């Protein structure tokens, strides 16, 4: 039997099945793409009435957000306003405050911790720290929220906020320990492990010869780390910050539990009191209001908040991608 003929035929058949496999997998990929595209479109369509009724003032400040949401829930428009009347500034401000403060804190901590981990820590300490960081990153946010609401909040309420301070803002808000400080601290603990992991990974993959060269020139270890390793890993640090920002932005449960849940734009001009004022971030608001999502105006408003979060998340993931590009030049994955 000639060898070539059946082989040829078999190869043809195989190519057919190969094409089919590629086509099936590709179709699945397209389906996922369509689903995600659908998500963006439906969320924006659903959000549109809220944006169109308020215009750009949606992002501005004015009135009390909590009252506006309540009015929508009860389908009784506020006097002189449309039922869609909504000014999200205090929610956006709360999101910005918690996110930026937590990311800045976490950035300082995680750079230090990553340097410690890769350069200074003796082997046994490193062996302990690895699972610890992994564990901290894996703890569900509701557990962090529980610790916050049952342990940290009462402690701050009792020991850090004096009665005089509570009295001073009595007319505006109640200070009860569920506040900016608690939210920021717990958020920091939540995002630090992720950042440590990314930064430490980048530090570990800095070519050793670069540092050896620096050390051989008589530069001390800290200077070497600062001038060579951290500089090389700078894009990874940016990428870590971006990823952590996305995580902080989207955190809903923990913030719903410990941030105070009061639509109040904490005012930095209040001095120390500012730290103890409640905030209400966007994601937490969506979570708290999601029970009323069947009701028309409220649901449009909730989807509008979701759309804002989605756009920010998309921009952040693009920024993260852009930040990682310079690393590829050195063959460092981040």
């Amino acid at each position, binding site marked *: 039997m000639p060898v070539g003929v059946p082989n040829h035929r078999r190869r043809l058949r195989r190519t057919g099945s*190969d094409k089919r496999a*590629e086509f099936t*997998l*590709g179709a699945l*990929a*397209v389906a*996922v*793409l369509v689903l*995600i595209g659908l*998500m963006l479109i*439906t*969320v924006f369509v659903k959000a549109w009435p809220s944006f169109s009724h308020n215009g750009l003032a949606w992002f501005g400040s004015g009135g009390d957000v909590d009252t506006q949401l309540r009015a929508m829930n009860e389908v009784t428009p506020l006097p002189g306003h449309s039922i869609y009347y909504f000014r999200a500034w205090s929610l956006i401000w709360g999101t910005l405050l918690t996110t930026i403060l937590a990311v800045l804190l976490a950035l300082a*901590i995680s750079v230090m911790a990553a340097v410690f*981990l890769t350069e*200074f820590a003796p082997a046994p*300490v490193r062996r302990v720290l*690895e699972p*610890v*960081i*992994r*564990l*901290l*990153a*894996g*703890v*569900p*946010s*509701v*557990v962090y*929220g*529980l*610790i916050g*609401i049952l342990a940290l909040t009462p402690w701050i309420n009792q020991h850090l906020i004096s009665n005089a301070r509570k009295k001073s803002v009595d007319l505006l808000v109640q200070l009860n320990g569920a506040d900016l400080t608690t939210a920021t601290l717990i958020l920091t*603990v939540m995002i630090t492990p992720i950042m*440590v*992991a990314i930064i430490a*990974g980048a530090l*570990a993959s800095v070519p*050793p010869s670069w*540092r*050896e060269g620096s*050390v051989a020139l008589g530069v*001390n270890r800290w200077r070497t780390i*600062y001038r060579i390793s951290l500089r090389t890993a700078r894009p990874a640090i940016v990428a870590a910050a971006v990823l952590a920002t996305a995580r902080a932005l*989207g*955190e*809903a*449960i923990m913030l719903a*539990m410990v941030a105070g849940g009061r639509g109040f734009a904490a005012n930095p001009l209040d001095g120390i009191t500012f730290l103890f004022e409640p905030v209400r971030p966007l*994601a937490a608001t*969506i*979570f708290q209001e*999601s*029970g009323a999502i069947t009701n028309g105006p409220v649901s449009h408003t*909730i*989807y509008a908040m979701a759309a804002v979060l*989605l756009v920010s*998340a*998309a921009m952040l*993931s693009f920024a993260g991608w852009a930040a990682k590009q310079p690393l590829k030049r050195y063959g460092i994955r981040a």
Partner: protein
Amino acid sequence: MSGADPTTEQIPAQNELPATPTMAEIVRPPRSSTSTWPLIDRLCYGLCWATGIALCMIALAIVVFMFVKGISYLRPSLFIHSPAPSLHQSQSGGFLDPIVGTLIIAAIGTLIAAPTGVALAVWLSEYGRPAWLARAVESAIEMISGAPSIVLAIFGLLIFSQGFLSFLSQPAAEGSLGSSFLCAGIIMALLALPLIVASTRAGLSQVPDHMREASYALGKTKATTIRRVLLRAIRPSVASGVVLGLGRIIGDTAIVTVLAGGNLINQANGNVPILSTLRGTGSSLTTYVYENSPAGEGNAHQKAYAAAFVLLVMVLALNALVTRLTGERTARSNWLSRMRPAWIR
């Protein structure tokens, strides 16, 4: 081929380059030289140590706190009783239903996300044509990995409350109710998908090209090579991705609250044994913790601590599993360069 003759084994030994120095082998100046450093450098050095130790302390404090509280409130009876509506903590039942709910949602989510994720990763890494489509799919996956889970949840509610999807939950006045274990599980799959895709792709990129080429040389097609060679070789990566996804699913609260009904007791919908539970509503351990915390309605913090402890033990177990799965491959390499692709993203 253990019994190869010594001459063939000598050749690689002679050609071997000096091993690239790892972190541990780098010759460092002796530690005593710290005293000659400038003050600011010494300060930073101390700060690094302080941060590292503080991180350890915080982690230890959290774990010890949760374990002490959890164990002191944990009773065996909590595992076999359903939650009961009551103002008193002693009468509000246990968390049997939430545990069952967690398992159901985790199972649905994983069953959907694992095959889809692996297929997507294979397509992206091995085919990826046309390039623009691959790029689009890649950024779409990036997009959901960055999207807050509460946003995914309310998107799910929007989709599943369409009338034609009422077979997933139950018909309502207009459209369908849109909340059931099935709905929650499907959206949970979306949450786990990026982790599985990332882990599988990391595994695929580590398979050397000569393995593929050897398979082609034996006359295997690309599809067969993927199924028989590549997927076998990267089994640990797939498994660790799935376990990471599982961890994400177990830990999520928002999706369960919004999409699984929000009632603590699992309510079946219909009479078909398993399907009715899947189409029914209920809770998971995370929503149980939330509802029993002062932020929720129950305000039974002993129950909340106990349930959170169970949750934490589950996460610890999954963590240990990931370490085991990835550890077998990379026992000798530096963990720092390995842990990132595995569980970030």
